[in-house]
Every structure is written in C-alpha cells, then in structure tokens.
C-alpha cells in the first residue's frame, strides 16, 4: 500500500533553523511552501489508528520541534489526503500562519489548574455555610413536603457562591498573571472543585520571573487550594488557527 496520506505534526518557518535529526524525528519529513514548513510523516490511507502510543509519539515529536524553534502544533490525529492538500492549507493560510509564528517566537506556554481542597470546599460552600445550612434544615423539617424545590435552591445557592468565589480568584490571581504574560486564556472549568483552569503564553526569558509571580500569589493560599502549575509546553492554547479549508481527515 502506498503512503500518500500525511500525518501532520506542526507548521513552522521554512528558514526557522529546524533540523530533523535524532531518534525522535526519524521518519518525519517536511513540505516547504512560501517560507513555511509543514512537518509530517507519510502514512497509508486509513492506516493511522489513534492510540496512547500514537499520542505519546505525537507529543514527543511536537515537543522536539518546538524546542528548536517556534512552531504551530497541529491537533493529535490530523491526517491529510496528500501533499497537495498540505500545500493548499499553507497557501490559503500563509498570512495567518506567519502572523501566529511571529507572535509565538521566543515564547512558551505554562498551565495553571487550581482546586479547592475538598475539606475547604465543604466548609466554605457546604453545610457549614449559614445560608446553605438553613435551607437544608428547612428541607429536613418539611419531611416529604416539597423537599425537592428546597434542595434545588440549595444547589443554586452553592453554585452562585462558587461562581462568585471563582470570579474573585480570577480578579486577584488570573488577571494579575495575565497582565505580565504575553497572552492568557481561561479554559473550561472541569470539576466542581476547580477554581481556575488557565494557560499563559510567556517569553522564555521571563520564565523565572513568572514562576516567582505565581509563587507570590499562590503560596499564601496553599491552605485553601491545591495548585498544579505545569510547563513549559508547546503553545497549544495559543496557536488555534481557523484554517481554510479545514484539514481533511481520514
């Protein structure tokens, strides 16, 4: 079976000083077009099954490319029909891709996920909250008479308080960090205990200063929060291009 399809990893500058040497990049090839370079591996049509191994390999290759120069990471599992499909994407989106590469040059991404400690959450928003305790008491006293609407009100009350607390955290922490970063995004809240799910684009030479700012803001709050501060990562959250035409997947 001929390998006409292309599994895409990243797009960078054609003159970006990237070299495809080393074990990790074995089998990775390049298509050049108008000063841009698309990094790919040839695959047979329909051959590429998505798996844990494939995902780890994708991350490793993108990470290796990104460690050499600014690249736009392509989503895991993107397969294009043939070389002409890749060239068409580079051709139609050249301006947007170059602008994004300029913006990402010399930068790295860090992630910040913050969670309330479970006991803190229960104390702050659960039965120990006077308003919540009062409603729960009412629900119990009412026996089978309309406990459901009361419990719904309990849920709404907790939800509102959690939302307000998240807004306060955003104001006191996220906005402060965003102001010293090149760019910042707030991603979806994934669990009820999650306070903040953010990513920041920072200049590589500012990494230490940014780490210090994270510590300054969050170390005094470690009794209340569990903090997961990770990176450096390729800038997945800051290279989301709306490419035309959309990649055709197989």
């Amino acid at each position, binding site marked *: 079976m001929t390998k006409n399809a292309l599994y895409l990893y990243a797009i960078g500058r054609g003159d970006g000083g990237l070299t495809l040497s080393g074990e990790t990049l074995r089998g990775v090839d390049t298509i050049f077009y108008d000063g841009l370079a698309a990094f790919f591996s040839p695959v047979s049509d329909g051959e590429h099954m*998505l798996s844990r191994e494939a995902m780890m390999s994708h991350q490793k290759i993108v990470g290796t490319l990104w460690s050499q120069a600014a690249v736009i990471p392509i989503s895991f599992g993107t397969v294009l029909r043939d070389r002409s499909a890749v060239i068409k994407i580079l051709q139609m989106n050249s301006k947007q891709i170059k602008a994004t590469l300029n913006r990402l040059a010399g930068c790295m991404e860090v992630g910040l996920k913050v969670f309330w400690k479970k006991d803190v959450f229960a104390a702050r928003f659960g039965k120990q909250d006077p308003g919540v305790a009062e409603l729960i008491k009412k629900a119990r006293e009412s026996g089978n008479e309309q406990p459901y609407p009361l419990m719904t009100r309990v849920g709404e009350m907790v939800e509102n308080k959690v939302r307000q607390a998240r807004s306060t955290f955003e104001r006191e922490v996220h906005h402060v960090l965003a102001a010293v970063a090149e760019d910042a995004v707030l991603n979806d809240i994934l669990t009820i205990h999650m306070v903040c799910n953010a990513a920041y684009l920072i200049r590589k030479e500012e990494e230490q200063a940014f780490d210090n700012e994270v510590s300054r803001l969050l170390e005094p709050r470690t009794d209340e929060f569990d903090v997961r501060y990770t990176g450096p990562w390729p800038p997945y959250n800051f290279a989301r291009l709306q490419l035309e035409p959309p990649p055709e997947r197989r």
Partner: protein
Amino acid sequence: MGILGNVLLGPFKGLWFVIREIHNQVQKELYDEEAIQKQFVALQLEYELGNIPEDEFLRQEAVLFERLNQARTACAAANAGGGE
C-alpha cells in the same frame, strides 16, 4: 394524514420524538469528536488528581481511543458517501 390520524398517533409521535432525541444525544456523546476530546481531558484530570487508579485510567482511555477511531471511520465514510 387527517386530523383523526394526528390525534390517534399524537402520543406516539411525541414518544418517538423523545426516543429520537435521546438516540441523537447518545450518538453525539459517543461519536462526537469534540465531546470525546473533552472526556479525554476530564479523564486525565481525574487521574492526575488521584481520583482513579492507573489501571482504570488506562482502561477508560483505551475505550475513548476506540470511540475516537470509530468516529473518524464514520466521518470518513460519511464524507466518501456524501461527496466533497
């Protein structure tokens, strides 16, 4: 179909609508790539937080990969059948 037909079949049409909606939602949950990717993120987080053990994480992750592959296959078949 006349008014009588509508009256007689009304409840069943409503029921059919509900069944169809549930089916659509289940299909979306199972084979919508974006939905699957969100489940990957949520699963990864549960594992990172220590809420599920590694073997359970790997088992659930394998199921999601399987569904992602099925979604891709279904999408490719639909594209091939529906033309460009």
